[in-house]
């Protein structure tokens, strides 16, 4: 649900969100420990953000496919949702689980 919220935000603020994700990847990849195997998934995301359209990226982060799930597990979309937005989503998930 967190990624779906990011996908929704991309409808109105796609350029900024993609730039933020690119910045995140560059920052993390510059850390010494994110080399070798730890960097493969991040480099894959760099390729996606450079080459796919916003609508294709939205599809990747919101679809319930194995591939989407794999990519989302190394998501670069931090710093997009506010803490309040994250809390609302966690609260909504908690309600679903407890129903």
């Amino acid at each position, binding site marked *: 649900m967190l990624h779906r919220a990011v996908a929704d935000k991309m409808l109105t603020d796609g350029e900024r969100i993609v730039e933020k994700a690119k910045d995140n990847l560059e920052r993390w990849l510059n850390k010494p420990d994110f080399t070798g195997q730890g960097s493969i998934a991040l480099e894959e995301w760099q390729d996606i953000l450079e080459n796919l359209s916003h609508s294709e990226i939205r599809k990747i982060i919101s679809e319930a496919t194995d591939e989407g799930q794999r990519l989302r*597990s190394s998501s670069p979309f931090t710093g997009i949702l506010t803490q309040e937005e994250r809390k609302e989503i966690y609260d909504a998930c908690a309600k679903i689980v407890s129903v």
Partner: protein
Amino acid sequence: MQKSYLFDLISVVRGILDENELPVIVGSQSIFAQTEDPPRVVRESRECDFLLFGGKSVERDRINSDYGVFSPFADEKGYYADALGLASVVLPTGWEDRLIPLHDSEGKLVARCLDRYDLAASKIAAGRPKDIEFLADAFESGLLSVDDFLGRALLVKDKLENDALLERFERLLKHLNSSTPSSESVNAIRDFVKQTF
């Protein structure tokens, strides 16, 4: 994830738990308690699953809020914690009695981790591509014995809906068949599937 990142996450999670409480690690990262050379998917992962149970929902929420996915911590560090309850993970019967201690570089006990065969059983129960890849890598490297894995997998059979575990094993066989079609591992798993389902 590098082991140093795992210790960093353990440290912040311990800041939320009771003073003498040790975190329980249940996801792929728990393998670090039993090897320094984990499967590739473990190195690639940026999350660590912590199991909080027994009325720990407040602590769970705090961990996810402060150190979870898309948190400011994750934004800064590039890795994050995922605090789960027992409803979110399938574990084999008796897993609590087989937890493995995890020590930091100074030899201090800092967490308890799933035994590798309990982890493997939870992986086959989940059956996602990354879980299947973990199992295949672990068989190939010798980290897991197929026979011991199959024995432990029986302990999750009744915890899944009808045929769900069979479907997970078919995924595993498909993956293994693509790389080592006539290996002893594949033959043992194929025999197990025939006899069990």
